[in-house]
């Protein structure tokens, strides 16, 4: 069912408030600005198609955005392979380096890092969005920290 004008307004209000944070979270998750853009656009397009069927638009687009992005990543180069980072698009050297580091993490760990540090969600909230428990989120974050710590320290020593 296509959403009505009123539904579109409702979705657009959420879009205005959410999309920068969602897009940047997906950028961290995917390492690819174009892919992040496609995931955001697709998530909101699906909400617009459903109209009033989606009660909580914000929660829906966060969850959908990450799943769509995961699907796009999988379709492109396998579920755990970020592929090359488009540095010319990003034009921020330190970010490109960080995205490279994140690219070595498993998908779920990247998602947790992105949702925690850019999305600003708590562990239980991340768990609900990703369909895992809050405890699992904490495990992912701790393991991501451990992996990043080792890599960053090695880079600093070099």
């Amino acid at each position: 069912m296509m959403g009505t004008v009123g539904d579109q307004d409702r979705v657009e209000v959420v879009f205005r408030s959410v999309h920068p944070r969602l897009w940047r979270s997906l950028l961290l998750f995917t390492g690819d600005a174009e892919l992040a853009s496609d995931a955001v656009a697709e998530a909101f397009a699906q909400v617009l198609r459903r109209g009033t069927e989606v009660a909580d638009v914000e929660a829906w687009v966060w969850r959908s955005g990450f799943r769509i992005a995961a699907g796009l990543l999988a379709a492109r180069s396998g579920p755990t392979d970020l592929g090359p980072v488009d540095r010319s698009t990003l034009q921020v050297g330190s970010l490109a380096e960080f995205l490279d580091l994140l690219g070595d993490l498993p998908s779920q760990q990247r998602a947790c890092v992105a949702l925690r540090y850019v999305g600003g969600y708590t562990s239980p909230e991340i768990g609900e969005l990703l369909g895992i428990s809050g405890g699992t989120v904490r495990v992912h974050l701790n393991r991501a920290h451990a992996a990043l710590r080792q890599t960053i320290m090695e880079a600093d020593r070099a």
Partner: protein
Amino acid sequence: MLLCARRSWRPIVPDDFDSVVADRCRAVDDVSVPADLWSRAQVKVLDRMPVQFTDGEATLIGLETPSQTDELTTPQRVVLAGLLVAAAVVAIAVVAFRDVDDASPDAQTATVGSSIVESQFGEAMESAGVLVQPSAEDITLASGTSRYPPDSGSTQVSAADTFALLRQCQPGYVCDAGWAYVTGTVDGNTLHYGVLGQAHDPEVFVLDDRFFVAMESEPTLHPAPTAWLIDSSSGGYTELTWRDEPTTVSSPEQAVLIGDGNYSVSRWVNLSRSSTGPMEPVSLPRVVDARDGTIRPLAVPDNAAASLPVIQHGQGRIWIGTAPGGRALEVEELEVVQVAGLAYSDDGGATWAEVTLPAQLFESAEPRSDSRGASIAAEGDRIAVTAAWSYNLERYVYISHDAGLTWSTVTIANPSKHNGAFLYVLADKRLLLMRSDDVYPAELLVSTDSDWTKLEQDLPATRAIKNKYVSVNRDGIVVMHFSESTFDDGTIGNNPDAPPNRYRFSTDMTNWRTIATLDP
């Protein structure tokens, strides 16, 4: 610019590296967000062509109408959205990937997800990232009931109402992989398909509420048996790496695999269709480690007897059978030449306490070349043991309530003499004694309440007949399988009374259920 910084008020797993990661991620705030995202979304709406995925995990298209969610709180809505998303994923997987020529009774769609208590084992498996989601091609193959027909492999149901079953690729099909699986919830609301690979008659075991293990026989034919872990929640799977080195259980990220005994339904179904002869059962515990994706033997004493399985739930105390040299109740010239015992560990196999079985047990045992000696069930401090086969007019069941320090005897009429008997522990910790004239269960006796010394006979709906296999798995779930080739009188043929879905399961042997998605 301030997106990362403003998150600091949220209480979330702070550690000494938290601020470092937060600082690093602030760089993303400097990246300009594309200005055309809203217009791109609107274009996509007009195109009405959603993004196509090859991975069901990532597929969100087809979300059902959550009309009642307006009354829910925000967190509830998030959860409900997740459940509906999972439902949509399963529905798409089932509908879109099913063989068009298969008018299968499996052809049902899912509506909601399952609720399974998260364990640290499950969390560790997720964190390890080793679970593989079946590809669309694999789902297509596995859901084809012509290629992988129902009832072509073993089935298990857990206490959490999850299930896993195996299906074997049929002759005439070019199957790169010999075995496929179906898993999900028994109410039919979650259903996943996947393809495993080649293996020699793998048997499926309950590992915990969520995970199952499919493992081929060991160790005679395959010193390093092929084994897979199947996740009933996500539908993912991973091949476990066999390690010969024994290990203890010292971490919640390890899980103990307990076999269901020599006469489990799962094993009998395999035996009935195997062309290569009996398999060796999993009699000694195995340990699945989520941290490295391995399966290996539990560390046991040198006299651990693989031929003397102990039926148990596998939680907390672990029981094993023992015998000098690890050879229990070996038969030599029709004489029982070895004395068997038991041992238990309360610390995951680090230390073991020896238990002596009553000597009278062996006096009533019938030496048979195929004998497995004794049937033993244990739960905490309680043990029940009886001769697997007895030629006396009375059968003796020896009961201990203090981990083998003292024993009492329960006497049961044994009118048909050469009568096999098998002991199990039900989900409510009652004792079940199953006895028969042959390998098929004919009669079930159940202890009253928690008293294992009072075995009631012929309770309502507890009588089994010969054309069914009945056993109890480690979760205390009674599993029944209707044989299509054996009638009540024991004759062999094509039994038209065998239902299409030949598995039934129960926790009380009165109320029997089926796996809903597999029903016609």
